[in-house]
């Protein structure tokens, strides 16, 4: 197929996947939170299944005035949401939905993911500063300190997986998990990295992921009771919606990365290689849905941490544990 046509198709597919993923996640969050905390709206809105609740929320955001504070730095204020949503979108470039269903199977795979997702910090700091509001500035600073602190354990957890797989390409990581691990009575058994000794890495990755997403229990950057809405305080209407969508899109994206690295991605035991292009996307989506459910469950179950507890957890526990995990992965790789 023509290169440009293919590129256009890929861009449209990724946009649709990202937007639909974000909307479904928002709906799921409303439903699950309703069941966990007896919130009435998502039960009854619209007559059945509360289907009208996300639509009502969406319309409410859309019809709000798009305000820019008079004292704000207008250009930077307007630019910030685009940076955040761009970084959430770019991650999808390397996520494989099947052996051939990937926009670009970059040799750098995971490294690319870490590089582009670190850009969202920049957008958050820009939003916090340009709002000309003390709550926003404090929120932006907290967000930056938090994202930097938790990027390290995230990176260390990824390094252990890369050591074990011997490649940074996400397709290669899936292939490494699909390879037979050992044979019992002539039957080849293969297992995802979660079972093949990456369980500490998986826990570190998920904790760091919740912190990177600034979700409860790590939502100090937008802590309502302390900072109004943090760096989002001055945003309204469509720009707030962009931050909102970006947050849910990166929730799905980070779950997809975790599913690919620890749960085998599009691969599932028993399905032949040739069928993976057809079955793979659904397998991946099922794993992603499970991880997204975990993220939502965390949010509605745990209270918020204090700022010093948050930094303690990253620097005193997760980073040393991450380093230990790399050593273990190295030993595991050499011995087995």
């Amino acid at each position: 197929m023509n290169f440009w046509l293919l590129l256009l198709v890929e861009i449209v597919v990724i946009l649709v996947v990202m937007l639909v993923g974000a909307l479904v996640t928002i709906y799921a969050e409303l439903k699950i939170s309703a069941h966990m905390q007896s919130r009435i709206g998502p039960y009854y809105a619209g007559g059945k299944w509360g289907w009208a609740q996300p639509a009502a929320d969406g319309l409410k955001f859309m019809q709000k005035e798009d305000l820019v504070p008079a004292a704000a730095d207008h250009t930077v204020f307007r630019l910030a949401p685009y940076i955040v949503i761009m970084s959430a979108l770019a991650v999808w470039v390397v996520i494989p939905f099947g052996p051939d269903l990937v926009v670009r199977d970059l040799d750098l795979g995971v490294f690319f993911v870490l590089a582009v997702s670190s850009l969202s910090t920049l957008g958050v700091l820009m939003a916090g500063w340009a709002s000309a509001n003390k709550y926003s500035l404090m929120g932006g600073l907290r967000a930056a300190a938090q994202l930097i602190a938790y990027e390290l354990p995230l990176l260390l957890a990824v390094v252990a997986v890369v050591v074990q797989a011997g490649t940074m390409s996400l397709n290669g990581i899936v292939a490494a998990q699909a390879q037979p691990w050992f044979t019992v009575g002539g039957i080849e058994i293969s297992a995802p990295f979660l079972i093949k000794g990456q369980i500490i890495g998986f826990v570190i990755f998920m904790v760091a992921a919740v912190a990177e997403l600034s979700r409860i229990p790590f939502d100090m950057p937008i802590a309502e009771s302390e900072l109004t809405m943090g760096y989002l305080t001055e945003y309204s209407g469509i720009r707030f919606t962009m931050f909102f969508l970006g947050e849910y899109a990166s929730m799905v994206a980070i779950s997809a990365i975790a599913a690919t690295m620890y749960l085998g991605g599009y691969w599932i035991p028993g399905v032949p290689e040739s069928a993976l292009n057809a079955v793979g996307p659904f397998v991946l989506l099922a794993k992603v849905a499970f991880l997204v459910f975990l993220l939502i469950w965390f949010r509605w179950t745990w209270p918020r941490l204090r700022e010093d507890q948050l930094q303690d957890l990253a620097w005193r526990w997760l980073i040393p544990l991450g380093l230990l995990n790399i050593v273990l992965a190295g030993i595991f790789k050499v011995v087995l």
Partner: protein
Amino acid sequence: MHVSFEQWLTEVANYVFLALAIPTLVGAWMVVTSTNIVRAVLYLVVTLAGSAALFIMLGAEFVGWTVVLVYIGAVIILFLIGIMITRAPLGSHEELSHPATVKIPAALLSIVLFTVVAWAVADAFGGLIIPPDVGATRTGQLAEVIFQRFVIPFEVVSLVLLSALVGGIALARKDDPEEPA
């Protein structure tokens, strides 16, 4: 190998190069001329992103994304935190524009530095043309070069970082004079 201007115009890659190089240069110019310190840092992001894109264009994917991860994702963020935690005024600040006694020597120094670096690069790699079919360098190949052939220089370079860390702690540390060491 000499390339005529007409030949240069027929190559699509050259237009891509211009589309990346011009924002890089404009960004660099705005970094030094902007009178708003936070905006100057944001222009630096444009410059770094441009240089990362140029690295990727040259097939040095790993270097390109390292620039994004390390410089934009960490160094710039630390710059911004440093500025915002002390003072981050909105709007322009006139004390940031310097008198001619500072501007002219700085401009001269920049021109000399540019000439030296450009001359050195042209002298070393002038005739070298990367074949279009080489593509991106595999990360594995890069690792083999760094961790086998250049492993000692690579480790020695890390000492610079160590000394910077020690120096940073020594500068920032305030010993309580009354408390015994």
